[in-house]
């Protein structure tokens, strides 16, 4: 048992358990809290994968910005005390569960049959090098400069859209 496997098992357990808790809690605020915990576990996994930049951005963007926005909206709308959390139609619930479990088993089966780790062998130094801010920054501002600018425009459009939607009084 090496240290990487132990860390992976701990973080993966947190991620899996919190993701289930997100969809089974009746209180939206508690769901949001578990989603934040899930994002932290993911940030830890990214560190384990030598992706330090993505790991910090995960915390800044998801935990620090997006989830605060969610909490803010939940608190403003005060929708707590949902009497029945799941859909009224029971057959939808069971059907969804059945489909999900079936798809998960299918995907796991394919992964284990195909065993991608035989074709993908981790190269330690290349992996560390690809996750640094220097590498990602260089790529973003040279090869991916046009998508980067487009992403900026997307954010601007989203900001304007959100302001207009939130301000407009619907009749």
């Amino acid at each position, binding site marked *: 048992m090496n240290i*990487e*496997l132990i860390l*992976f098992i701990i973080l*993966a357990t947190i991620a*899996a358990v919190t*993701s289930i808790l*997100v*969809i089974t809690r009746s209180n939206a605020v508690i*769901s949001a809290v578990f989603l934040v915990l*899930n994002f932290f576990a*993911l940030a830890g*996994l*990214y560190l384990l*994968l*030598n*992706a330090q*930049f*993505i790991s910090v*951005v*995960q915390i800044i*963007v*998801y935990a620090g910005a*997006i989830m605060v926005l*969610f909490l803010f*909206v939940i608190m403003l*709308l005060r*929708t707590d005390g949902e009497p029945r959390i*799941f*859909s009224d139609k029971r057959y*939808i619930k069971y059907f*969804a569960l059945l*489909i*999900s479990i079936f*798809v*998960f088993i299918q*995907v796991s089966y394919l*992964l284990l049959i195909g*065993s*991608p*780790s035989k074709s*993908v*062998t*981790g*190269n*330690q*130094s*290349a*992996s560390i090098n*690809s996750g640094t801010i220097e590498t*990602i920054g260089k790529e973003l501002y040279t090869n*991916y400069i046009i998508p980067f600018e487009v*992403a900026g425009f*997307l*954010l601007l459009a*989203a*900001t304007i859209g959100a302001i207009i*939607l*939130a301000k*407009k009084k*619907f009749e």
Partner: protein
Amino acid sequence: MLSIPIEYYLILSAFMFIVGVTGVLIRRNAIVVFMCIELMLNAANLSLVAFSSYHGNPVGQIFVFFVMTVAAAEATVGLAIIIAIFRNKLTVNVDEINIFKW
């Protein structure tokens, strides 16, 4: 590091994605449905980062960066829509938001 097989990450990613799908299908609170979509996006991000790291190629992580940008934009607009709907119907229950069907 990178001593464990990549399947572990991929199966965890698949599991989180499936949980997200289940959440979208069975939950009624629009905000929680939204959170489940974030969960699915993150599951996809995890497999992208895993592949990027095991291949030693930064492109996967750059894609994750763009996914995060889109997720942020989506969250702002989506939450604004939810606020607008709440103002109109005084509920965020997706089963009751059905003015387009009769």
